[in-house]
C-alpha cells in the first residue's frame, strides 16, 4: 500500500512530463507541397501521374469492397502510382493524431462508431473544399458534372459554412417498416394518414399482435418518425427553422401535433410492452419474429436483420403518413440522409489524387457494385436501375425515386450533438407517458435555446 514516490521516480516523471506535455497538441510545420499533375480532358482534376495515394475507409456493415474497386480503377488510370488502401474500424482513434500533426491520408471515409466529429474538423480547417470535384465532368458522361449525378440533398448535406467538404456515399431513408406478406394475409393496408394509422393499430391489436415496437434503449429511433411527421406537416421551412435554432420552433403547431401523434401510440397501448427497455437488436428481432407489426428504422434494417429474417418475410419501407389535412409535403415525402462520409483532408499530400479517386468512386460502375455487395442504396442517381434487388432495398430505391425532390433531412444532430441528446431523452420519456407532448416540447425547446445561447458553440445556418 505504501509506495511513497522516491525522489528519483518524481524526477523522471517531471522530466518526462515537461518533455511530453505538449505532445497531444503539438503541431507540424506548415508546408503546402501537395502533388500536382497536368489537367487534361482525361484527368480534369490534374491528379499527379506518379504520386502514391493513401485511402482510409471505415469497414463496417457495408464492407469496403466498393472502395477497393475504386482504388483498382484509379490504378488502371494512373499505372505509375500505388494505391494504399486501408479498411479499418474506429477511424477517429486511428486518424486523430495524424490530423493533429497535419499528416493525414489522401482520402478518408469518416464513418462508424468512434469517427471524428465532422463539425470540429470543419471548424479547424482540416478539410479540402470539394467544389472543384463537384464541377468536374463525371466519369461516365463528360457532359454532366459530378454534382448532377448525385441524388438531391447529398451536396447540401456535406456543406458546412457554404463550402462542400464531405460527400456521403450511402443513401439512408427513414421510415416505418412492415412485412408485406403479413399485411396481405391479414388484409391490412399501409395507412396514408395518421388517423388511419391509429385505426389500423386498433385492428392489429385485436388480432393479437402488438402494432408497434421500437428500439427503446436508444430513443433516437423513435425521433425519426416524430420529426418526419413534423416535417410533412410543416414542410421544408420547418426543417430549416429547427436546424437554425429558431425560437419556439419545437413548440410550433406542426411539431406539437407530431409529438402528440407519437404519444397516442403509447397512450392507446399500441406498443409492445417492455419496448422502452429493448436494445435495437432485441426490438428488431421481436419484430422479425412477428411479435409486432411496425418498427421505425433506417434503410440499413434489411442488412442488419439478414441473419434472423425468416424466409418470405419480405420487409418493406413505408413513409411517414400525413399528419394533418393541410400537410405542406405530399405523401411519399421521406426523410433521407446519407452516410459513409468521404472527405479529402486539407493537408493531404496527394489531394488532387484524392479528388480524382472520389470522382471514380461516384461513378456508375462502382456504385452498382456497392448496391450489389453492400445491399444499400448509393447516392449516385439511377445506379440501381435494372438490378435485381432484395425486397427491402427495392422498396427503398423505389421510395427514393418516388419522393424525388420531396426528400428532407435534418442537420441539427450533426451540428449540435447536445440538442440531439436532449431530444432523445425527452422522446424516451414521451413514449413511456412520463412526459406529455406539451412538456416534451417545452424541454426540447429549452435545450435548443441553451445551444443557441452557448457562445462556445459554432453556429451553422441553412
Amino acid at each position: 500500500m505504501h509506495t511513497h514516490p522516491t525522489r528519483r521516480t518524481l524526477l523522471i516523471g517531471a522530466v518526462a512530463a515537461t518533455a511530453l506535455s505538449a505532445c497531444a497538441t503539438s503541431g507540424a510545420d506548415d508546408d503546402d507541397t501537395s502533388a500536382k499533375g497536368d489537367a487534361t480532358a482525361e484527368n480534369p482534376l490534374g491528379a499527379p501521374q506518379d504520386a502514391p495515394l493513401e485511402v482510409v475507409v471505415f469497414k463496417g456493415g457495408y464492407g469496403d469492397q466498393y472502395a477497393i474497386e475504386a482504388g483498382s480503377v484509379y490504378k488502371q488510370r494512373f499505372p505509375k502510382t500505388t494505391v494504399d488502401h486501408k479498411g479499418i474500424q474506429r477511424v477517429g482513434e486511428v486518424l486523430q493524431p495524424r490530423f493533429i500533426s497535419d499528416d493525414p491520408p489522401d482520402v478518408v471515409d469518416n464513418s462508424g462508431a468512434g469517427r471524428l466529429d465532422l463539425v470540429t474538423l470543419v471548424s479547424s480547417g482540416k478539410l479540402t473544399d470539394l467544389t472543384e470535384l463537384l464541377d468536374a465532368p463525371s466519369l461516365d458522361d463528360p457532359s454532366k458534372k459530378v454534382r448532377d449525378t448525385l441524388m438531391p440533398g447529398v451536396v447540401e448535406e456535406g456543406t458546412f459554412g457554404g463550402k462542400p467538404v464531405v460527400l456521403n456515399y450511402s443513401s439512408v431513408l427513414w421510415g416505418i417498416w412492415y412485412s408485406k406478406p403479413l399485411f396481405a394475409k391479414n388484409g391490412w393496408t399501409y395507412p396514408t394518414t395518421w388517423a388511419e394509422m391509429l385505426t389500423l393499430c386498433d385492428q392489429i391489436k385485436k388480432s393479437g399482435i402488438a402494432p408497434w415496437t421500437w428500439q427503446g434503449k436508444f430513443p433516437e429511433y423513435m425521433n425519426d418518425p416524430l420529426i418526419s411527421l413534423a416535417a410533412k406537416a410543416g414542410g421544408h421551412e420547418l426543417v430549416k427553422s429547427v436546424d437554425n435554432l429558431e425560437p419556439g420552433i419545437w413548440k410550433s403547431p406542426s411539431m406539437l401535433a407530431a409529438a402528440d401523434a407519437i404519444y397516442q401510440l403509447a397512450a392507446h397501448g399500441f406498443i409492445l410492452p417492455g419496448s422502452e427497455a429493448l436494445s435495437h437488436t432485441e426490438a428488431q428481432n421481436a419484430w422479425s419474429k412477428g411479435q409486432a407489426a411496425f418498427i421505425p428504422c433506417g434503410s440499413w434494417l434489411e442488412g442488419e436483420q439478414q441473419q434472423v429474417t425468416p424466409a418470405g418475410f419480405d420487409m418493406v419501407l413505408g413513409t411517414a403518413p400525413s399528419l394533418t389535412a393541410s400537410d405542406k409535403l405530399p405523401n411519399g415525402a421521406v426523410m433521407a440522409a446519407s452516410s459513409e462520409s468521404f472527405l479529402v483532408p486539407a493537408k493531404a499530400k496527394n489531394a488532387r489524387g484524392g479528388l480524382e479517386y472520389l470522382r471514380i468512386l461516384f461513378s456508375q460502375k462502382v456504385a452498382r457494385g456497392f448496391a450489389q455487395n453492400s445491399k444499400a442504396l448509393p447516392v449516385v442517381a439511377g445506379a440501381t436501375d435494372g438490378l435485381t434487388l432484395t425486397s427491402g432495398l427495392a422498396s427503398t430505391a423505389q421510395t427514393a425515386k418516388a419522393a424525388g425532390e420531396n426528400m428532407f433531412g435534418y442537420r441539427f444532430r450533426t451540428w449540435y450533438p447536445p440538442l440531439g441528446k436532449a431530444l432523445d431523452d425527452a422522446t424516451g420519456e414521451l413514449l413511456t407517458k412520463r412526459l406529455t407532448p406539451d412538456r416534451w416540447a417545452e424541454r426540447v425547446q429549452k435545450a435548443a435555446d441553451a445551444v443557441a445561447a452557448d457562445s462556445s458553440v459554432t453556429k451553422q445556418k441553412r
Partner: protein
Amino acid sequence: MRHGRYRFLAGAMLPPLLLYAVFVVSPYAQAFYLAFTDFNGVSSDVNLVGLDNFTRLWSDPLFLSALRHNALMLVVVPLVTIALALFFATSTRGGRLLRAYRVLYFFPQLLSVAIIAVLWQFVYTPNSGLLNGFLDRIGLSTLERSWLAEPRLALWCVMAAMVWSAVGFYVVLFAAAIESIPADITEAALIDGAGQFTLFWRITLPLVWDSVQVAFVYLGIVALDGFALVQIMTVGPGGPDNSTEVMGLSLYRNAFTYGKYGYASAMGVALFFLTLTLTVLMLRATRRERVEMA
C-alpha cells in the same frame, strides 16, 4: 559483485519505468494541461482558457446530476458490498463444503466488466429476462417491470450488478483475514458466553478492520467510476432521462461525441481530486486503534 548486481537491477528497472513515464505519467500530466485549454481533439491550434472549463462544470446540470448519482453510489455500494462480504465470509467458515462454496462467489471476479454488464442486461430485459421470468414463476408477476427503463429503479439495478460483481473478491479477502484470527481468542470468548452476534461484533470485526478499511477505499473508487456498466447496460446510455448518468459517462460523451476534449479533461481532473480526497477521508474516518495480535 554487488556493484554488478545493482547495475543489473537498474538496467532491468529503467525500461519499465521509462515506459510507465511515457504511457502513464505523461498522459496524466497532459490531461492537467488540457483541462485549461479549448482543445477540440483534432486541431493543434489550442488556446488557454484559464479556469473556464472548471466554472462551466458547476453550472452543467448533467455533470451535477452525475455527481449526485456517484455520491449515492459511494454511500450504497461500499456499505452493501462489505456487509454482504462479511456475512458470506463468516457464514461459510465451517465445513469443507461451505468453504468450497466461496469459490462460487469469486467467479464474477473472473469476468470482464463488459461481460458482466451484458449478462445483467439479459437479467433485466423485460420480456425474456431472468428476473421477470423468476418473478413470474414464484407468482409475483405484479412486480414485473422494465427494470432499466424506470428512472426510479435504473440506478439501483446498476448498483446491484456492481455489488454482485465486487462481493466475491471481498469474501475471499475477509475470509483470509478471519482465518488468521488466533483460535484461542474466539474460544475464550465462547467460553465467556459470547453468542454468535457478539463474537462477530466484538471479536471478528475489530480484528479484520484493516481489511475492511482497505475495502472501503477500493470500493469507493469503484463507486466513483461505474462508467462501463452504465455505458453498456442502461437506456440512452445514462438514462432513462439521465437517471443513471455518472461522471465517467459525462466525460466520455463530451470528449468523444461532442469533441470537447478540454472540457472533458477538466472533468477528469475534478474526478482525480475527488477520488484522492475521498481516499484520504475514508482512511481517516475508518481509522481505529490497531489491535495487536501476538
